[in-house]
């Protein structure tokens, strides 16, 4: 009886191990619906930037639409963590731009919070004018650099 129990336990363990291995090793074409939805959400959160006027940190109407979409996704996937990165164009000076970038990142943080996103899902940082999205000069370039970027740091 004792030997039978041991054999049974061994068979169960092997079966369980086989099952786990099968779950970790995705078959070709295997698609976890949850994962692909999460991946799409991460992509949308990362892709959508929020832009600002010169020396301003108030969220413009189009920026609010971008943030509303992010808020829905972040509430749907509360495991997602996002770093909001504030940036400025090259014209201002560096210390003031660090402060302005911080205000831009914080403005998005506050707006997302007001839409019900858990504050623990977000962190902010300012790069001032040190991390331009586009190199060069002129308003066409500058307006692309006055922005908030959104980086997913965990999910």
């Amino acid at each position: 009886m004792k030997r039978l129990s041991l054999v049974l336990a061994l068979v169960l363990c092997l079966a369980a191990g086989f099952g786990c291995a099968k779950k970790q090793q995705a078959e070709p074409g295997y698609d976890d619906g949850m994962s692909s939805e999460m991946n799409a959400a991460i992509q949308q959160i990362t892709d959508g930037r929020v832009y600002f006027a010169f020396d301003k940190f108030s969220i413009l109407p189009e920026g609010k639409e971008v943030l509303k979409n992010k808020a829905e996704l972040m509430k749907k996937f509360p495991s997602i963590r996002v770093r909001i990165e504030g940036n400025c164009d090259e014209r201002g000076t560096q210390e003031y731009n660090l402060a302005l970038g911080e205000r831009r990142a914080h403005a998005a943080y506050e707006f997302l919070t007001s839409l019900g996103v858990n504050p623990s899902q977000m962190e902010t940082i300012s790069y001032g004018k040190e991390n331009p999205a586009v190199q060069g000069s002129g308003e066409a370039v500058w307006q692309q650099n006055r922005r908030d970027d959104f980086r997913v740091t965990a999910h």
Partner: protein
Amino acid sequence: MKKAIVIFCAFFVFAMSGRALAALRVDIYGPGQNVVSLALAAPLRGQHVEASDMGRGLQSLVEQNLSFLPFMRLTDPKAVLGGTVMDGAEPPALDFKRFQLAGADLLVTSFWPDGDAGTKTVQMRAFETNTGGRLFGKEYSKVTKKDLPEVADRFCADLLEALTGNGAFFRSTIAFVKATGKMQANVWLTKPTGRDLRQITNMKGQAMSPSWSPDGRFIVFTHIDPKSHALGVWDSSSKKVSRIRFPSNVVIGPSFTPGNKVAVALSNGKYPAIFLLNHAFQKERVLEQGSSINVSPSFDKSGTKMAFTSSRLGGPQIFMKDLGSGSVSRVSMNGGYNTEPNISPDGTLVTYSRMTEYGNRIFVQDMVTGEERQVSFGPGSDEQPSFCADSYFIAFSSSRGGSRGIYLTTRHGGDAKKIPTGGGAAQFPRWGLGGEKK
């Protein structure tokens, strides 16, 4: 540590000369700054015997140093009829007339009594050519070839002090930031003449806004990596760098106070505000905050006045806070974007950069007369002005040469002179009186 005191300096009493001390003074602070012409007699190692080894090297270093003084003109030796080789290094062996005829107001002599090769002593003297009066004399002993830059700096500092009342320029070390790539920059040191250039931090990420402690031991700076802001602290004693983070993840423009504490913009939860840190670099109290951006504190040497940038009126402007009474007054009255204030140690001037249609330019506001003066004119963008301890020289960064570099001007403006800092964009110059030797 370099055998700093290997160079032993002693005042020459020169009792044997029997001549009165000269009284020539250069007013570098007044509006009508005068120019003096200075001639260097050929260095000697004996009566009418020219020094050729260290003597020539020291002469060349002194000439390089003096070329940084906008109020000093060096007399061309070829313009001195009869040549610059004298019979001796002090009267009556000096023929002042020939230097006077060449237009020189001052004559500097150097004498190596035991020769100028190996480890030797050099005597340096400065005279007025008009009266033959001696400005000062100094002896530097146990001098070797590698000590020559330090001897040149010490002599020029003493000469500057004798002429203007302040020799801080040649005693200073400038901290600055040099970039090696996007969001990658470290802190370096250099003499204002470009000598003794060296890197003191080696960290991944972007260093910005270095500031010296008044005792010359520490440099604090903003350090940004992809995830965080931090206060970088370099200790010249241990040569180590610490990275101190704050909960708000905002660290902007740290500056030492005369009391050896650090003021820095951190977040008050909503806006960047200026905090005073204690000696352990922890928040002690708020110096300035409000529902606007407040950054870039700068203090006079009494520690009672703080200049800073604030957006309380919309665009950024320069303000002054009396730390005793708490009253705040506006400093910059023109332009819509004035930032990066730096108050002169004597508290009479505030320099800052203004955004113009041609790029940023450096301005100086006289706190006594209320007058504003533009002291830089590009091309490119001129930023981050910083006063020397003499309240006369101003270092700033400029993109006028393509890549950003460090330049010198004065409270009066005039031609800017570039400080050689090697390859890589150089910015954020800050004067200090410290710094370890290589």
